């Protein structure tokens, strides 16, 4: 009799736990997938670095990697370069402005010799705006090269993260 009662209570508690767990998971999923903004094209501006000096090769590498990664993994059908006249007539255009917030040039030699020292890191503030300059999304992203590869690999790491953020935050407009 007592054993039956204990069994019943046990099963009720287990069911309640499962229900609660399911509810919390659904909540988490809802939190993880906010509504995506619509966009048909993105225009990438050259990185601004007024306060911190950035070597020219890093500036160019960052810009070219961003364009390559956005074309590959950004999820938007059109990617325009800074100054491209074709972007003027594009509908649902978003503009990506990047500003350098931090830069530490490491040493490839030190990385190859010690493995742990000589990391290169770059911190960039990304602002997605619409055509009129209204900010849609802002976030700081980091690019690092810690163990293997040339210093310029930090810009590739940053570009990959930016493309992922773009894919997660914007969805292509229907018909594009």
């Amino acid at each position, binding site marked *: 009799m007592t054993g039956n009662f204990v069994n019943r209570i046990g099963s009720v508690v287990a069911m309640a736990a499962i229900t609660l767990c399911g509810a919390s998971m659904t909540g988490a999923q809802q939190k993880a997938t906010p509504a995506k903004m619509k966009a048909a094209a993105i225009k990438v501006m050259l990185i601004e670095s007024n306060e911190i000096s950035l070597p*020219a090769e890093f500036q*160019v590498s960052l810009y070219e990697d961003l364009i390559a990664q956005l074309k590959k993994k950004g999820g938007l059908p059109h990617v*325009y370069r800074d100054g491209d006249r*074709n972007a003027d007539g594009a509908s649902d255009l978003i503009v990506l402005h990047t500003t350098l917030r931090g830069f530490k040039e490491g040493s490839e030699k030190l990385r190859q*010799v010690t493995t742990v020292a000589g990391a290169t890191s770059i911190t960039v503030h990304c602002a997605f705006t619409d055509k009129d300059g209204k900010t849609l999304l802002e976030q700081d992203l980091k690019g690092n090269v810690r163990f293997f590869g040339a210093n310029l690999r930090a810009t590739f790491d940053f570009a990959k993260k930016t493309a992922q953020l773009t894919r997660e935050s914007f969805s292509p407009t229907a018909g594009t």
Partner: protein
Amino acid sequence: MMRRYLKRVSVVVCVVMLWAGVSRAQATASAGTKVTQIKGLSGVKDKTGGMLAVDGSNLHFTHEQLKVDVPTASVEDVVTGADSQRLIHGTLGTLTMFAPYESGRFLSLFRTKLDTLTIKYRDSDGGLHGAIFTMGTGKAELLKKDLLDHGAHSTVPVDENAAKPATKEQKP
């Protein structure tokens, strides 16, 4: 008699050496500078080796059958810099990292110096492009001067840039 003979021989040797030097210089000038295109040049894969030359009003990159021209007038900025790479690089360099007794790390200490040349240019639609090249030391400044002579622009004057020491590989 002997003195005369030696004089003739030395004159012939001098002429041959002069001819060889001139023909080599001409070959270098026409073929361009041996470079590695790190990234950015339209239609060229990253880390592609080739020849770079300023040919009339174009910056001319060739790799086997592939030819890419960038009008020098469209070049908005030319910046040179310095870098270094492992003496043994590429696939063999990667393989040496697995060599026993950490000898791969030891080999990383032996490095060759490089010049870098970074350009920014506009395409026919006004879109901004950038390209990075590496080459042997002392060649980037000559290419930059050549580019500026043919209508390219730069934010860093040639002399000022040449005076800069190699600062790329710094200890953190």
